[in-house]
């Protein structure tokens, strides 16, 4: 139950008091956890608790279904973890940092009057590339089946992206021309 504004209590900001015996620290920690969990359960409200419990049970069911596939080697544990845990790792450690650095770089290079337009087009362009990439790659084409993936994806997508940039850049261009007069 955490959020950006930090309105709910964070369980670990208060350290358990240091005891004389070695046992009292973990015991105190357990006590804090117990207080935090019971507090959360008491204040959550019935609807949220039911939703959370139903969600947890559903996750458990999904986990069993996944386990069944992994035990049948479809894929094995390494293959599954690569494709499943790989998503958040790529997003948090690669994709987002690259986008942040690029956005900061763009912000410094582009004149203020053009900044919002260029960033808008770049964002829509990036989001559409995520969908388009497998089609643009052409990797799914098969020689025995000419009706599959039978469009010119590079041309069609190029036109679409061209239109996105055109629509984004025309207003600041018009403004710049007017200002010059």
């Amino acid at each position: 139950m955490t959020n950006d504004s930090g309105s709910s209590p964070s369980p670990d900001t208060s350290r358990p008091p240091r005891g004389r015996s070695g046992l009292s620290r973990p015991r105190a920690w357990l006590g804090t956890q117990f207080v935090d969990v019971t507090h959360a359960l008491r204040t959550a409200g019935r609807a949220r608790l039911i939703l959370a419990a139903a969600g947890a049970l559903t996750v458990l069911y999904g986990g069993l279904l996944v386990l069944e596939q992994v035990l049948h080697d479809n894929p094995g544990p390494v293959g599954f973890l690569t494709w499943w845990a790989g998503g958040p790792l790529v997003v948090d450690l690669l994709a987002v940092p690259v986008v942040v650095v690029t956005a900061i770089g763009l912000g410094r290079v582009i004149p203020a009057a053009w900044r919002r337009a260029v960033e808008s087009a770049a964002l829509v362009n990036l989001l559409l590339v995520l969908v388009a990439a497998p089609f643009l790659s052409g990797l799914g084409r098969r020689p025995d089946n000419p009706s599959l993936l039978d469009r010119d994806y590079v041309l069609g997508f190029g036109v679409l992206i061209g239109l996105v940039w055109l629509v984004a850049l025309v207003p600041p261009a018009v403004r710049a021309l007017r200002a010059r007069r």
Partner: protein
Amino acid sequence: MPELPRPGWYPRQARGAWLSARVGTALGLSFTLCFLTGLISHLHQHSTLLPSQPAWGYALSQGLHVTSGIASIPLLAVKLWSVAPRFWKRPLIGGVLRMAERASVLVLVASAVFELVTGLLNVAEVYAFGFYFPPVHYAVAWLAIGAIAVHVAVQLPVVRRELGRPDAEPVSSGLGRRQVLGLAGVASLLAAMATAGDKLPFLRPLGVLSQRSGDGPQGVPVNRSAAAAGVTATDGWSLEVVDGDRTQSFTLAQMAALPQREAYLPIACVEGWNAWARWEGVRLADLIDAPGAVSLVVVSSPDRGGYGRSTVGPGTLGDPQTLLALRVNGDALAPDHGYPLRLIAPNRPGALQTKWVNRIEVQR
């Protein structure tokens, strides 16, 4: 050792709870639609429970499944962008509550990304993942929808607060979160439009990322070719009808001499596209004595791949539109459409419209 990143390192503009709550709500709706239509598809593939009408049922539900999934891709990307700094929030691990919440978010992000990536790759037929797609995509769908329920339960107060609050913070010359929200919507709609050209005929010219142009032999696209199925020689073909200890055999001429019926039905592919055609052939029920007493009909072909056979339940068997088709759009079936004989039935995934049929087995 250098310090690990902190949330404050990320630029604050163009992200935050105001944006997360709104994109998250849209994603919650699109994932729910995607999950429910996915369940319908699963039921079609693994049971004969669903009704045989309306004929366009599967074309609609699977079109919605693929389109809602594709429309979710830009939304999920923007959502992850919006919440990314929280990955580095301190304490990194924390107490029991924090660990549980982190674990649920890990399951959510991993499963949501997994579903959209594998689903998209499957539609583009890029089988980079190297496992049999349907059961894994199905299993992780339960992980995703369960984790969404937990996430909604945890974040509901935040969502309520943020949806009732205007975007008050001032924004410099670059993109603000209000613009990012609008652009996520634009990208989502453009992605849906670009990939839906093989689902809605009027979108065909705009469908620059559609899996199909709609062309194909006899005006119908093909998913599994005769070459891929290993069905090349059909000379001396006959249809065997096995009913208990009785086996009947029909030559092509005998099939053509039986009463011919017509049905205007779609091939509705699990990959989302559909193509309607005028099919002619023999009613499946006409080949069976006392079809009302049948529990299941197994329709099979020489194709030894996973989709070389399918089962027809009593509802579909009793539907007058359920045919063993000999002709499509006025001509004998092309080899890639299952010459000499294929099953065509209403409200049914294309993968179960078995081609090159040479045997039907009646179970009572």
